[in-house]
């Protein structure tokens, strides 16, 4: 029997319940022992514009998404139009039969450009500009079109509030039934999703019943899926995982100014200021709490986080491109005055306001070169949930150990990926403290008496010392002495050499797959798991590939990267940006010129099928640059 592997898309208007529908489906499958992996796509809009969740359900933990999807649930007519190209022969499309009379010109939330493309396609196929037209389009392609009488089914079964309150549940229920998931698990999903509201659970379970009933009586009925024992897991997004990691890593002060897709991390932390403790914590510590401050802007956020670090507190901020642009000066100050601070940087589609709710990996060079002048900072990047957690911890450790700002890059795709994480190892990463000052009498905060560049750290309330962003002497007073200047510059930069020496290679770059392979992918961020899947997929097809996955850009593992790439044959750089920034960094540090690229900059997540297809094109030398375009 083939392993269950379902690609699913649930679409509807922003604010119209697609989150809950997706949640119910995920929960039902989770509790049935499956793994799920999903990514949310939505407009920069509060209500009305098109939004969807693309996910995949397997018993094994999935690592990537695929188009065409097996089943698409349309909670509004726009979904049918927007995703015309995301279904194919064999796919099922579920929608409300009330949409049948809907005319495309009334889909006012579809932007004119998208509209143009939809119309072009319908016109070419000589189809009408309405739901009927798109359904004909589907049918002609061999897609199963399943109309469900939403209002009727709901009105016949529940009487608590208006019918449209239950559209999402009905959508979810129908999907689950059509996929053959046990009804019992569907009910469990509902119970989980509406945990604290028994009345709501009751009504929604009735809707589930109606859905299952409808499917059972129809010709659509399918075989029941196997179920598995459910192990405890956490359903996390990248935002959640990072918040969790930072808190475990000792974070006690977080600043933020609201911005997508960063602020979900901070608002989550804000609602957990009173954290819970493990057994190993002694009683005093149990009274501790976290402080999260919503600042007046990002200038305040970075500088306030810097300020909090001066009392010995582990502090951080989180932001996205526009906010990060405002932080350049504050990051430079932290570099100059040797403040341990973490900036969790959620990349989104730029430049400028760009595509605020879409993906991007175009901030790498900016992060690496941010701030005027030369100062040490670290730049790390995460690519999956586990890395978000443990890198969240490590980012704070690095900051403490090397007394410098640490920029932790995460992309929007990862931030909004939903993944079931099986186990969190609280002993995986030890907490590292700053180099403590022992000489309180005549404290030299910037003592030059150090080989690794790390001076004893100073704490307000415990020591008297000075700090300034001007060049300074060992006590921290302003100096313009030319010799002292040179020494201080050298001391500060020395810390990067130390970090490079101390940090193990596996935290900087990792080679996945066989050492010798025909193809070597280079990537960073959320493409990690996708490319690991790609390698397996290629292997099945008899093609050997491996992946040089980058985790740390400053200090950069130049020697290792050069070694790997010099042994490689066909190197393909895969990034969600237009200029291949990681490839540029590689060339800057190693001189090696990567010549093949798979890039995507339309703001949508990459999928397995498009990477595979592009790889073939490159292998066949049809092209050296593949620009991926999937996604609505």
């Amino acid at each position: 029997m083939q392993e269950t592997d379902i690609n699913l898309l649930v679409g509807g208007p922003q604010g119209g319940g697609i989150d809950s529908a997706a949640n119910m489906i995920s929960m039902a499958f989770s509790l049935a022992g499956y793994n799920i992996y999903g990514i949310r796509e939505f407009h920069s809009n509060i209500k009305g514009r098109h939004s969807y969740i693309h996910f995949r359900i397997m018993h094994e933990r999935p690592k990537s998404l695929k188009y065409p999807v097996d089943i698409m649930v349309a909670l509004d007519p726009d979904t049918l139009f927007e995703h015309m190209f995301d279904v194919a022969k064999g796919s099922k499309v579920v929608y409300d039969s009330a949409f049948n009379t809907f005319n495309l010109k009334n889909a006012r939330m579809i932007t004119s450009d998208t509209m143009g493309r939809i119309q072009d396609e319908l016109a070419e196929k000589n189809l009408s500009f309405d739901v009927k037209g798109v359904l004909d389009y589907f049918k002609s392609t061999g897609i199963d079109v399943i109309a469900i009488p939403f209002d009727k089914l709901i009105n016949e079964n529940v009487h608590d509030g208006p019918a449209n309150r239950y559209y999402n549940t009905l959508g979810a229920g129908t999907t689950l039934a059509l996929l053959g998931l046990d009804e019992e698990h569907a009910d469990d999903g509902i119970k989980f999703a509406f945990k604290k509201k028994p009345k709501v659970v009751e009504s929604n379970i009735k809707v589930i019943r109606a859905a299952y009933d409808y499917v059972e009586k129809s010709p659509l009925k399918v075989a029941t899926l196997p179920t598995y024992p459910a192990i405890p897991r956490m359903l996390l997004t990248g935002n959640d995982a990072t918040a969790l990691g930072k808190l475990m890593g000792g974070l006690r002060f977080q600043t933020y100014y609201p911005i997508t897709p960063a602020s979900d991390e901070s608002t989550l932390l804000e609602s957990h200021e009173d954290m819970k403790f493990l057994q190993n914590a002694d009683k005093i510590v149990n009274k501790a709490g976290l402080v999260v401050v919503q600042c007046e802007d990002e200038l305040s956020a970075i500088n306030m986080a810097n300020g909090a670090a001066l009392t010995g507190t582990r502090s951080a901020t989180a932001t996205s491109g526009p906010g990060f642009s405002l932080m350049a000066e504050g990051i430079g100050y932290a570099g100059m005055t040797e403040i341990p601070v973490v900036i969790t940087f959620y990349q989104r589609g730029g430049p400028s306001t760009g595509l605020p709710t879409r993906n991007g990996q175009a901030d790498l060079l900016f992060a690496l070169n941010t701030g005027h002048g030369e100062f040490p900072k670290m730049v790390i990047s995460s690519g999956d949930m586990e890395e978000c957690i443990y890198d969240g911890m490590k980012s704070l450790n690095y900051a403490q150990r090397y007394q410098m700002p640490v920029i932790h890059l995460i992309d929007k795709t990862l931030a909004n990926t939903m993944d079931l994480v099986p186990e969190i190892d609280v002993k995986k990463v030890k907490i590292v403290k700053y180099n403590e000052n022992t000489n309180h009498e005549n404290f030299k905060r910037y003592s030059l008496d150090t080989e690794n560049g790390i001076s004893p750290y100073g704490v307000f309330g415990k020591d008297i010392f000075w700090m300034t962003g001007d060049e300074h002497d060992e006590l921290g007073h302003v100096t313009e002495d030319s010799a002292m200047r040179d020494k201080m510059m050298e001391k500060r930069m020395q810390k990067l050499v130390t970090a490079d020496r101390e940090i193990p290679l596996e935290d900087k770059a990792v080679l996945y797959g066989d050492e010798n392979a025909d193809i070597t992918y280079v990537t960073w961020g959320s493409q990690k798991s996708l490319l690991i899947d790609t390698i397996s997929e290629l292997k099945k097809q008899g093609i050997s590939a491996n992946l040089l996955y980058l985790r740390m850009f400053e200090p950069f593992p130049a020697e290792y990267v050069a070694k790997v790439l010099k042994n490689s044959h066909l190197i393909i750089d895969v990034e969600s940006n237009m200029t291949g920034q990681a490839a540029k960094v590689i060339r800057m540090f190693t001189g090696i010129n990567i010549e093949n690229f798979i890039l995507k900059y339309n703001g949508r997540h990459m999928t397995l099928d498009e990477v595979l297809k592009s790889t073939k094109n490159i292998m066949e030398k049809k092209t050296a640059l593949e620009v991926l375009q999937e996604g609505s």
Partner: protein
Amino acid sequence: MQKGVEDKGKYNFRNNITIDWCPGCGDFGIVSAVTQALSNMKMDPDDVVAVSGIGCSGKTPHYLNIAGVHTLHGRAIPYAVGVKLSNPNLNVLVMGGDGDLLSIGAGHFVGEGRRNSGVKVILYNNSVYGLTKGQAAPTLPLGEKVKSLARPNIMGKINPITLAMASGYSFVARAFSSEIKQLSYIIERAIKHEGSAVIEVLQPCPTYNDVNTLDWYRQRVYKLEDDKSWDPVVNKKEEDEEKFDTGYRKSLEWGDHIPIGIFYENNTIPSYTNRLAGIVPEYLKYPPALQEVADKDGYTIVDPIKTFSEKDVE
């Protein structure tokens, strides 16, 4: 807590770093007043921290024998708030120029009024940008021409007192750098006040401001407290409307007579630290700075699953 605690009253809050302000600069008076206030209060030097921006004014922390951070232009307030909220036991003094706090830093100045986190802002008002050679500061009146300007000032002036009151500060005062005793008294009062304070200090800049000179101020300033009926302190919410209004109107006085003293002190507004204490259990006793984050073996003490229990799927 190791320095000078044996006899705190005698601790020398002025260190031995050479001051490089111009002769006659009003900033000297401010340093004297600050050190006097700290001595008078027998402050433990470890319990007070100086935070400054960039400007002539910004150099102040280097001259004080307490921990000090000379931050970025306009950003002293965010730093100070970071220090204060992570360790509310510290007394945090902010020293900033009028350009620093009211031009590039105006957003934080306003924001801190809303927070009222308990920092004490000493605003050096010389009506010019000293360190960058005498451009107009936001406190220079429209049409005024100090010697460093090519043409009369084309921008209007901000009154720091009214702006502070509109922003929500619960302690608002004005002083004059040559009235060291009054200034030192006001600083003491501000430190004792729970919420955030703004103390505007009128300060001659003999190098660039040839209009608002030492004499110009000497001839004009008068003390609010000389009027025995002057009582700017709000201890009950009901008194606020009237006292706010009185203070506000008083602060608009300028020209031949310039009032100095405390304009407004409202003790009924909780500070941010106290607001936080209502949310984060035992925040004041175990603030972020005083917590241990690792167990004795160096591992995390946070239980991720219990903390984020809503994410747990079982």
